[in-house]
């Protein structure tokens, strides 16, 4: 099921919100659904997930901050690669997305 708590269906100016094809991916091993090509971070946000990673030094939680690929706060482990900017990386079917601890997965 597409998590849609935070998704808009209709907008006063933009009209009906149409997205691409629903695809399944995993977040820390749990199956979620998002829309193909939307940024990974958006699919996670829609599912209500806030924490993308815990920092190297102080192990503090981080999430979306700039949402345009500049600040690099939202990085996660995607398909085994660390430090992937989820706000600008398009979601694909079957992606393995994991919370990043420092620069590694748990």
């Amino acid at each position: 099921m597409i998590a849609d708590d935070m998704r808009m269906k209709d907008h006063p100016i933009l009209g009906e919100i149409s997205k691409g094809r629903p695809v399944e991916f995993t977040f820390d091993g749990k199956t979620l659904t998002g829309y193909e090509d939307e940024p990974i971070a958006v699919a996670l946000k829609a599912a209500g997930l806030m924490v993308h990673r815990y920092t190297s030094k102080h192990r503090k939680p981080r999430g979306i901050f700039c949402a345009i690929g500049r600040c690099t706060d939202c990085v996660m482990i995607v398909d085994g690669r660390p430090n992937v900017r989820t706000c600008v990386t398009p979601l694909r079917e079957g992606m393995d997305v994991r919370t990043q601890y420092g620069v590694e997965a748990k």
Partner: protein
Amino acid sequence: MNNSADVIIIGGGVIGCSTAYNLAKQGVSCLVLEKYEIGHGGSSRNGGGVRQSARDVRELPLAMYGVKNLWPTLSEELGADVEYCQKGNLRLGKTEKHMEILRGLSGNSAKAGLDVWMVSGEEAREICPYMSDEVIGASYCPTDGHANPMMTTLAFFRRARQLGVRFITGESVLSIEKIRGKARRVITDQSVYEAETIVIATGYESRGIASSVGIDIPMKKVLLEALVTEEQPRMFDQMLGTAEADFYGHQSKHGSFVFGGSSGIEDYTIDTENSVTTPITAPCICRGIIKYFPILQNAKIVRTWAGWIDETADKVPVISRVSEVPGLVIAAGFTGHGFGISPIVGLLVSELAIGKETTLDLSEFTYDRFKAKM
């Protein structure tokens, strides 16, 4: 404020800062003039190698002295972590020709008393498991290592400043003037300073400054480029190089990798005004690294930088009093391997500056050794 000191050091790089620290420790009043900021030039733009292996044998005593006596306690001495890591240097080879080069280099060093030997590809992979099977052998010097050049420079600066050395940044030295036969005055774009002894330690720029008192050092500028990766999981501690010097580097304490290298054609394409990165070098370094360390192919480059190497005609530095201009000392032309010997050079230059007998023999590094080939 008083514009005079016992010694004026021109150049706030690692050599200048190390010298200032050593002078201050001996109670000598000292003033450092820096055109940009502390560590602007090669001091902040080098691979961080603290290497003895593959050095010119003339330089080897300096490198060995530093590794033995100075580097291990430097952080403690300066009160700041210079990230010295002594886990060896591997110089890698992939072809029989490479192995020949490596055998030659390590043979010379070994003859001069350094503990360095050849290892097989397998042995090298035991030391550093991440390298590709293409590596067929390496020279290995277990007492080599690396440190953080930016921190080292700033740590010398910080400690020297605490000991009372006066540092002035943002002033450009225009010339040195002799008074009654001795180098005495330093003219900058903003002021005039005076000292008993003047040390020039400004890399390639030393040529221009020395020429104001009629001295030249045969030196050219060579562009160096390096790249830095994002933080990576800890993989290895060794300093790495290759037989053909396609790249060299290490993983820093922070976790990022720092690799230097060249494309081979920079010498003919660079613009000698600005030290800026070229569009061809970083991709070339990346290709080199991936061949040796395939595991790093997904590591992201976050930064590249360029700097000048002050390469002398015989590729070893000038660390010398200038006999024809009393009061002048030159420490320049380190040819890309000055950082590793900077702690000992600072000590030696401080000794030259105050006319003390030097801890090590410097007769190979005189300013006037360069002669025509016939």
